[in-house]
């Protein structure tokens, strides 16, 4: 970021924003903007509470389960779509529609089908994350060099070896890119799912704080969710960078 021709490092620019936030908060301009210092204090108090820990645990479980399912199913379907033309023809259109469709609109319908509870949240996370993983995996597998496949065949690779030792590894950069996007969407999914259901986890707390105008706690929670999403997506990005040495050489 540059201001008046000065290059400002990221941490400093963050500090500037927080200072501005603090000033606006202290000036009591708006009820929904408490000073950032108060938000931090609220967050510190919030974190060790039993309520937060159990909400976080429920949320993490839903997120982990939904995302795990999305990764397994997404990679399997993506590979299948790339390798079996019939499957690609049948599913391709739907995957492309759903990858950009507003999945949140489906959540009320899910509640009707799956019931109101943890399962709905898991399914929501799954639906948010799975399509982008399918799509990226398919692209990756399609891009796998035909000459590598031919090479493996010429050395007598079995079908299983062809997939495990060549195809999946060749598609790994795209698969990981899909998983990273899936993770980010999954975080959205878990929050939106719980908000709409609003009786469990972080969603319930959001609901509680906003209904009672507990803005300090509300913002603390927002920041915690942001930090979590950032941390998870950064760790996938770190994995991506680790395998980059060969992605560039393909």
């Amino acid at each position, binding site marked *: 970021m540059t201001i008046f021709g000065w290059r400002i490092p990221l941490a400093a620019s963050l500090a500037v924003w927080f200072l501005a936030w603090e000033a606006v908060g202290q000036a009591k301009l708006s009820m929904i903007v408490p000073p950032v210092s108060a938000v931090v204090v609220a967050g510190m108090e919030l974190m060790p509470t039993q309520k937060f820990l159990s909400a976080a645990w429920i949320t993490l479980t839903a997120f982990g389960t939904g995302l795990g399912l999305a990764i397994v199913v997404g990679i399997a379907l993506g590979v299948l779509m790339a390798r079996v033309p019939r499957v690609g023809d049948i599913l391709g259109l739907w995957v492309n529609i759903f990858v950009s469709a507003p999945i949140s609109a489906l959540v009320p319908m899910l509640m009707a089908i799956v019931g109101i509870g943890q399962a709905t949240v898991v399914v929501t996370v799954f639906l948010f994350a799975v399509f982008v993983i399918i799509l990226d995996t398919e692209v990756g597998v399609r891009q796998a*060099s035909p*000459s*590598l496949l*031919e*090479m*493996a*065949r*010429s*050395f*007598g*690779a*079995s079908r299983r*070896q062809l997939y495990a*030792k*060549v195809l999946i*590894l060749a598609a*790994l950069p795209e698969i990981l890119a899909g998983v990273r996007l899936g993770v980010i969407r999954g975080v959205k999914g878990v929050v939106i799912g719980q908000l709409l259901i609003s009786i469990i986890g972080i969603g319930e707390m959001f609901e509680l704080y906003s209904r009672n105008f507990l803005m300090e706690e509300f913002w603390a929670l927002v920041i915690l969710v942001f930090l979590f999403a950032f941390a998870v997506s950064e760790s996938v990005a770190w994995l991506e960078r680790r*395998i980059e*040495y*060969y992605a*560039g*050489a*393909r």
Partner: protein
Amino acid sequence: MDGKIIVDVKGVSKTYEGGVEALQDVHLAVPPGRLTTFLGPSGCGKTTLLKIIAGLIEPTAGDVLVKGRRISGPGPERAFVFQDFALLPWANVLRNVAFGLELRGMPVPERHAVARTYIAEVGLAGFEESYPSQLSGGMRQRVGLARALAVDADILLMDEPFSSVDEQTRRKFQEDLLALLGHQRKTVIFVTHSIEEAVYLSDRIVLLSRRPGKVSRVIESNIDRSGSPDDIRRDRNYLDAVDEIWRTLKAYLP
């Protein structure tokens, strides 16, 4: 089985989907223990024929017999060296060279020991831990060659292995290949579109006609290979063979 023939191509034709007729009724007998080159204009079907012998492409008609048995796919007695190297970019040299053995389920210590031997044999000792992207084109093809040697196949199929390396590297590589094959006693089928390369490497040159490819001539030259590489390139028979092939191929030029 005729003891003098290791690969027997019988009436092989190949028409690709879309109607490109790449090969038409190719008959060819390859003797064991020698280096045979396929030479012909670009697009005449050399790669197609080599891949049919490798079992990677199904012929539309005809059969290929290897050691008297009809093939229906790749087999352990044949190993392929690819024009574009086909190295696994995520694996280091050691693992790439050992890949054929890995697919056969050989335990790690054994296959790495075998791979190290052949890495040294092709002159890449010290590069075991390097990745393909860190190697030059010539070095990558040495990895491809070591991988093919490591599975100890009797028949080596090489598709223009030196076409994407520079001239000096190519010459050095040709000399090394001859030296290597001198004590390996393998049957090699080598595809090239360089007349000099064909004559330098082999004394049995199969000329293919323009598409659809057919065997137009088989030229046997008698070059004295006991001398230095430069002696070979000045050998009377070498120059005659180059000349004769050039006159034949000229007829195919449009």
